[in-house]
């Protein structure tokens, strides 16, 4: 699931009606009470089933824990190890590489497809459905399909490509230079439909009159895009970019099924490493430490993105 999130816009609380102090206070208190009432079921469930395991994970990051035997306190040892671990550095670089490529490409493709689908088009509904369909498919099954298709010796895609002269000797998923692009492609393919639909809706809410007026004034299509469409899509772009960045920084699913982080760690992302260190090497304390560092990274990046976009988004 794209564990998508976005750091919030500043609160826009409804202004209280102009009234003498006590009545205003009473209304505010009533709202606050109601608010907590509304949130309570969610907060209780989250506190018990999400926050509590998270605090456990935080505690475990200061221990050595193999799950079978009791945890042993080691203080900051895991974090110190992280800083000098070449495997972590490799995973971090891979993750940043993956996110830095996948996010802009996904967003760009989503925008392009949305622009295409915003026109009067033959088979419009069919195209929209086919772009979105990968989002709802089970990733595990689809990864099997892709692995089959991309097999350099007996795969359909490789076979067809070889007929037009594109031959990969070792194959996408086994070639250390191509494995990462391959999993990136599958990641993009899987999620672009989701972002496209968001852009599509945004495009459809841009007033027609703006384009018409610009046309009459002699503005060509590109000019109209740059001056009208793009700025008015800034809200969407911000939301999608932040969502995509957070999801891609936690890339795991298709990598786990298609390459397991190989060949020789070329596609090992941070979450893949967390899985390996935790579940294969039984070092849960270390795995927890790695994941909390990832949280810090994601949080920091989200804040940065928010600051960047805050100046550029349009509000009515």
């Amino acid at each position: 699931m794209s564990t998508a999130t976005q750091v919030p816009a500043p609160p826009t609380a409804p202004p209280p009606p102009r009234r003498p102090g006590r009545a205003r206070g009473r209304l505010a208190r009533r709202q606050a009470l109601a608010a907590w009432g509304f949130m309570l079921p969610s907060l209780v469930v989250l506190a018990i089933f999400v926050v509590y395991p998270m605090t456990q994970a935080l505690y475990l990051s200061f221990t050595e824990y193999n799950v079978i035997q009791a945890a042993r306190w080691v203080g900051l040892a895991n974090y110190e190890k992280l800083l000098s671990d070449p495997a972590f550095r490799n995973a971090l670089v891979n993750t940043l590489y993956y996110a830095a490529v996948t996010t802009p490409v996904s967003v760009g493709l989503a925008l392009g497809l949305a622009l295409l689908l915003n026109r009067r088009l033959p088979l419009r509904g069919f195209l929209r459905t086919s772009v979105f369909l990968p989002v709802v498919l089970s990733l595990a099954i689809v990864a099997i399909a892709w692995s089959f298709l991309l097999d350099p010796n007996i795969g359909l895609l490789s076979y067809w490509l070889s007929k037009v002269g594109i031959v990969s000797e070792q194959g996408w998923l086994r070639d250390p230079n191509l494995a990462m692009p391959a999993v990136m492609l599958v990641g993009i393919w899987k999620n672009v439909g989701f972002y496209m639909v968001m852009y599509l809706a945004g495009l459809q809410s841009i007033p027609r009159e703006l384009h018409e007026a610009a046309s009459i004034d002699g503005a060509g299509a590109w000019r109209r895009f740059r001056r009208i469409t793009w700025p008015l899509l800034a809200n969407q772009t911000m939301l999608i970019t932040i969502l995509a960045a957070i999801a891609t920084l936690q890339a795991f699913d298709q990598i786990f099924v298609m390459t397991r982080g190989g060949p020789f760690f070329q596609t090992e992302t941070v979450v893949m490493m967390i899985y390996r260190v935790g579940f294969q090497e039984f070092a849960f304390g270390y795995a927890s430490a790695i994941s909390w560092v990832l949280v810090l990274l994601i949080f920091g990046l989200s804040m940065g993105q928010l600051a960047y976009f805050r100046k550029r988004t349009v509000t009515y």
Partner: protein
Amino acid sequence: MAATTAPTRAPAPAPVTRSPGVVRAWRIMTLVAVLAIAAVMLLPLVWMVATSFKPEADIVKFPPSLLPDQVTLQHYLDVWDRIPFARLYVNTIIFAGGVTLISLLLDSMCAYALARLAFPGRNLVFVAILVMLMLPFQVTLIPLYDLLVGLGWTNSLQGLIIPRATNAFGIFFLRQFLLSLPRDLEEAARIDGASEFRIYRTIIMPLAAPALLTLGLFHFMYNWNDLLWPLIVNQDQARQTLPAGLALFMGQHVVEYGILMAASVLALIPVVLFFLVIQRRFVEGIATTGIRG
């Protein structure tokens, strides 16, 4: 969606007049482009469906072919013998459906508070919820499992559904949507003394229908396709869900591709149907979520 202030839908801008030949050439090109894109997006799905109709011996061969030389329905028949498919379906509907319905309720209530009500600490709660999305589940899985054991909730329906009964992404998603609804919608009702719950139920939620449908689809498909969680919580074969059943065709050394693909196609149908049915309203739902960033 009459209450929103979203402007009228904007179709493509009127094209500059061109000669009919050029127009036709453009049309053909766009058609080709459309088909090419659709082909790339759908290739794995087409492969899946085609494979499900191929005899097993034809699946791994060279040179490969997309379409079956011989069509067989045997895999679709075998699925029902090899795994208790009907029961898996029922279990999965209960799981995914249960999580979806409960989650929609809890998420929307929480989102309502965060978007439409004023109270101190509002931002803090929201940020706290967001941070919950940033920790990979691999690391919380074992503490969560230990917790379920402590509660005695392994191998139970409540253990399966309640940890998922609310979802940080869902809360965030609905909050964004609710923020985009006009400010003064509920003021009149508040002044008249209506309870917040009444406002939530009668005014806000009906307007949120597209977003709720959208989120419902996300929750449903995510849980429908989830392999690990139900397998971890459940201990009885009788409680297993579809992905667990499908996984039984993936041996350590030998994958039974034909029957696996047939089972996958059958397992896909509800989610795809759900999507097709709500496609239109879906676009509306995500749209307004994005406008107020």
